């Protein structure tokens, strides 16, 4: 099965019942598969007039209590930024799949890239935090998309599935599990203030149409949900909570594969370049080379680095100019070697092996 199709199937298995999207290479197959399947599950597929409208419709649908998603690539992702900030401040669960292609601008529509890793984290204005997953196989397109809905409902944040053209268009065997784990959105208790959170920092969700009479606004709001745009403390408290609810769960939700934790040299990868690293490890069959493969990229859990206590060097191959390498370097005084790659092709395993010779 194709990666993009697996992504759509994973969403359906997770109970996604709304898809709003706009065609863009190399993500279109996700929309096409949803258009085919959603009506048969009692869900809704709608092709909107652009990506701004797509994410808007997804957020609107989410307020009626359904699991909702969209899928896009670079140019469309850029258009979504303002409304993603709206989803953050209104704490609206939604899943956004980005099958990354070469940018900036129209760039390389049919070629793989990982150039939007910082955009998904910081692309909308203001301070906030989100969750991003990065699948490295067709199976993970299925599994991680399904998991994205759980995380999104649990934390009430947009969750990104940051795939790339290679994984999206790759064909591999998919093992469809009988069921996927499902964690439901916690609902607001009647009588509670709609934007007051407990210890987990995530308030219960006041689904539209259930008599909560909730006012939801993109303005800074108090715990009643009422606009309060000039009080410094209300703003500070709100933004801090929005960030903390995700960041404080960093370790709890971190998800990665760890190979050879005693190694002195460790590859760190996510998405398609993981395949090249796996090839290197396979070819060299050295057990002093480690591999940290991130499945959950944002929030980056620096505790993962200490799982390699003897590591002296981290090598980070990415299909960009070192976006996550910069984040990793921020958290360690050990050597971080970015291996940037542009143009659409994957790192050549023999090049990575060559680099290994140089450092170890």
């Amino acid at each position, binding site marked *: 099965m194709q990666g993009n199709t697996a992504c759509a199937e994973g969403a359906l298995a997770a109970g996604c019942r*709304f898809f709003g999207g706009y065609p863009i290479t190399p993500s279109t197959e996700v929309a096409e598969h949803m258009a085919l399947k959603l009506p048969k599950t009692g869900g809704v597929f709608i092709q909107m007039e652009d990506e701004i*409208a797509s994410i808007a419709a997804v957020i*609107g649908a989410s*307020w009626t209590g*359904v699991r909702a998603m969209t899928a896009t690539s670079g140019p469309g992702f850029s258009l979504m930024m303002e409304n993603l900030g*709206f989803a953050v401040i209104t704490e609206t669960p939604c899943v956004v799949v980005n099958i990354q292609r070469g940018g900036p601008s129209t760039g390389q529509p049919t070629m793989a890239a990982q150039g939007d890793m910082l955009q998904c984290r910081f692309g909308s204005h203001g301070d906030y935090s989100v969750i991003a997953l990065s699948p490295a196989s067709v199976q993970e397109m299925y599994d991680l998309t399904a998991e994205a809905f759980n995380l999104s409902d649990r934390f009430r944040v947009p969750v990104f599935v940051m795939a790339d053209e290679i994984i999206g268009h790759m064909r591999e065997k998919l093992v469809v599990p009988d069921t996927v784990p499902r964690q439901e959105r916690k609902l607001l208790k009647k009588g509670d203030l709609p934007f007051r959170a407990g210890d987990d920092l995530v308030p219960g969700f006041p689904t*539209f149409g259930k008599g909560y009479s909730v006012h939801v*606004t993109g*303005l800074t709001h108090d715990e009643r949900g009422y606009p309060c745009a000039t009080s410094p403390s209300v703003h500070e408290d709100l933004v801090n909570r929005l960030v903390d609810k995700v960041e404080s769960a960093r370790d709890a939700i971190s998800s990665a594969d760890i190979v050879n934790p005693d190694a002195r040299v460790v590859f760190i990868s996510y998405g398609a370049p993981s395949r090249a690293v796996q090839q290197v490890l396979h070819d060299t069959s050295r057990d002093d080379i480690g591999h940290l493969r991130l499945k959950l990229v944002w929030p980056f859990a620096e505790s993962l680095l200490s799982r390699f206590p003897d590591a002296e060097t981290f090598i980070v191959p990415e299909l960009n100019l070192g976006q996550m390498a910069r984040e990793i370097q921020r958290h360690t005084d050990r050597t971080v070697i970015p291996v940037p790659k542009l143009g659409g092709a994957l790192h050549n395993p023999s090049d990575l092996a060559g680099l290994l010779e140089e450092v170890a």
Partner: protein
Amino acid sequence: MTYADWFREDRLPHIYCVGCGNGTVINCTLSAVDQMGWEKEETVFVSGIGCSSRAPGYIVTDSLHTTHGRAIAFATGIKMANPDLRVIVFTGDGDLAAIGGNHFIHACRRNIDLTVVCMNNMIYGMTGGQGSPTTPPGALSTTTPYGSGEAAFDLCGLAAAAGANYVARYTSYHVKELTRAVRGGLENPGFSFIEALVQCPTNYGRRNKFRQVMDQIEYFKSHALLVQKADRMREEGKKIPDDMIIIGILARRNRPALGVRK
């Protein structure tokens, strides 16, 4: 229940300036909703950004105050995901026709079952009085200090041409008619568009020879021309002066609609 029961009492008085027409349009809309006998629980108000778009915050139902221009797109998601909800959009002329113009015409084309009430004050009120797509030629604003040199949109003409099932225009002077027109929109399946011309004394009136709030209301009163009468005048070959405001139900039809409650 009366219209007054739909207000979020603890948020009144609202932020609108003295004599702002938006408050009147909220009254008329809520009165129409109340006449429909709808439950608060099943009714959702959605808006974008602008003075007009603050309206849902004063109404005690579920409401979504979204981003500038995008209200109709958000409302589309709500309505498609749960057609049992009654979804009403408040918007302004800038919100609807400038930044949100594309969503507007596509919602008309889809004929999705929403009622959109546009408070057209012919200006960007919230940002301090810049020209909007409905600022009349020659009118003054902070960005048209020598008089607007562009043509203005006919919002109702746009909605009708794009396929909306129901289109009406009144002003904040015509409270009874406006209430009836909104009610017509709520009753009619498919996309209903109601344009309410409103006075913005602070940012439009003041710059355009309406010194008092009442002056612009008097203008609406004296320059309104019922569509039937306008049609008759045209048939008789009479010229309708450019500054007349054609009011009335301008389109009502039954094209197939999307998202209608089953």
